[in-house]
């Protein structure tokens, strides 16, 4: 059947640098791609998981490109633009889309990223509000926590500073306790780090550590302090403990981008940064778990900040 419609068919390969299940950002990537493909008869979609060995990603993407059958390869993660650029050298006719990454001036690569600094500022502002609030689990000390899976450029240059800046917008005296787990899976070590932070007086933590997030939530729940969530709606993780969540609409963004690619209108070579105003980054205010657990005063202040940023 492949050969009957060579002219018409449009093949999309989704390369997931990791595994889909368990990672909200990749789940949204897959979902967005699936709904875009579902709209067109002639679009074939293939989702390929690359696994956790970073050393193999380039080779795996290359072998996708080598088939020569993929009209576009879409992937997501800040490391991928570099890898796609390298592959592009070997397969100059292959088109790539990289979500959540940034690379200018390669006329076969389109990148799209979210303004993570802004997103972190939103989380940071709420953290500032929480730590200085009268909420049950909050203490007098003005320290907020950020637990990362690893230290990587965007984390150090954008997220952590954004997070602190958001908090300082509440009270300039607020300090940041930043620690890295060292990997993206070890929940037990996540919990240990969280406990250490808690004993150092932190009362609200933003974990950006993949599977290790769960350990942070557990430790926070035990100690009765608060957790914020990044990238996807996380209130249900532990109602009452997770008191704030930003999200990015990677599914919609993927859908929009792919539709343009299928229609032939995607401007390859461009690098887009989506900010708050685009609507692809939000702070989730309309969740019942948010409204019921977070005092009105805090919510109002957060809403003002959110509107102000837009």
């Amino acid at each position, binding site marked *: 059947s492949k050969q009957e419609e060579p002219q018409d068919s449009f093949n999309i390969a989704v390369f997931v640098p990791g*595994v889909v*299940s*368990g990672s*909200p950002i990749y789940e949204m990537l897959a979902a967005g791609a699936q709904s875009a493909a579902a709209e067109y008869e002639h679009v074939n979609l293939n989702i390929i998981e690359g696994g956790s060995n970073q050393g193999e990603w380039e080779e795996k993407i290359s072998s996708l490109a080598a088939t020569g059958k993929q009209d576009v390869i879409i992937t997501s993660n800040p490391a991928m633009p570099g890898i796609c650029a390298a592959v592009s050298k070997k397969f100059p006719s292959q088109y790539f889309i990289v979500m959540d990454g940034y690379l200018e001036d390669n006329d076969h690569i389109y990148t799209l990223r979210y303004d993570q600094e802004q997103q972190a500022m939103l989380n940071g502002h709420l953290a500032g509000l929480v730590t200085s609030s009268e909420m049950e689990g909050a203490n007098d000390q003005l320290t907020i926590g950020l637990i990362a899976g690893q230290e990587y450029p965007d984390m150090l240059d954008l997220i952590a500073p954004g997070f602190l800046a958001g908090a300082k917008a509440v009270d300039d005296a607020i300090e940041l306790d930043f*620690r*890295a*787990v*060292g*990997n993206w*899976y*070890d*929940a*037990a*070590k996540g919990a*240990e*780090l969280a*406990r*250490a932070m808690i004993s150092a007086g932190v009362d609200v933590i933003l974990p950006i550590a993949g*599977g290790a997030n*769960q350990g942070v939530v557990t430790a926070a729940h*035990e100690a009765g302090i608060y957790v914020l969530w990044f990238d996807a709606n*996380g209130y*249900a*993780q532990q109602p009452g403990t997770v008191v704030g969540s930003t999200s990015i609409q990677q599914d919609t963004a993927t859908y929009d981008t792919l539709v343009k690619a299928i229609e032939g209108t995607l401007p390859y070579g461009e690098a887009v940064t989506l900010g708050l105003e685009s609507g692809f980054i939000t702070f989730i205010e309309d969740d019942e778990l948010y409204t019921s657990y977070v005092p009105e005063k805090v919510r109002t202040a957060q809403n003002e900040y959110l509107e102000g940023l837009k």
Partner: protein
Amino acid sequence: MSRLLHSLYLIVLFIVIIFTILLLISPEPVMAFEDFVTGPFSNIYNTGNLFAIAAILIICGTGVSISFQAGLFNLGGEAQIYSSALVGTLVGLALPEGSGFFGILVVIIISMITGAAIATISGFLRYRYHIHELISSFLLSGGLLSLTDFLISNTFRDSKSFLQTTSKLPESFYLPSILPPSNLTITILIACTVACILWFWLYKMAGGYEMRVFGLNKDFAEFGNISSRRYTILPLMINGACFGLAGALMILSTQHAAIVGFSAGYGWNGIVIALIAANNPIMTIPAAFLLAWVETGTRTAMAGSSVSLEMSEVIRGMILLMITLRFFKNRRSRS
């Protein structure tokens, strides 16, 4: 007396080595050292966890000791724990919610059977087709780990959870706690019992005796008319059952659900324990405590932010190597 001196010397040596390593890699070596040494006992939570980790390690180490004593190499421990824990959990989930003690027993037995079955495949292949159990257990393990990952994160995934996990077992399946709020349950008692029983079997009963002889030199076993079928398959079966037990206990006492990758590393650590304990089930107890102490110690040192995660692994590796070296040298000079 000289024995005592020697032990003292060893302890001092350890301390110096650990401290030197920390000095090299930690920004705050004194604090890190303090965290490392006293951390595991600084609060009930840590101490309880140390015991909980040790319990699982004892069981894994004892199991591996058995197959090592039979001269068999089981490299498939990782999957034997993980897959059998999943199977046990699924059976537990299928049982009525208030199954309590009976439910716990069923989960344990099912997990043990699963673990034993997986390991037995390798034993059978070795006996029947002379395929080295080292290859078959390793390859089988690779496949099963992925399969289990797949099953947890797709087929049996709890759609309400953000984690890649099955649903949680009902509370009636939780093992009774010792030292709350730590993870310690009666696992430590079970573990010591298992180690003692297997020790007794190994050194005081005919089957264990035959198995050890078989392990010393398989080619010559014919002389004693030792059944090579029995002692190729049985040790792996016991080993697998131990891993299954370890998996079930981790589920029943700590995790309460099969989470992706939750048992990673225990299969390998079982080998390490067995090696340190020179394949003596009773000796796995101190060996496991040592490892658990190093484990919790590096964790608390890390949580105190004085050491990074990988570095803590390095320290762990170094300490293990030192222990093994000293231990073996010591043992050798005695014999």
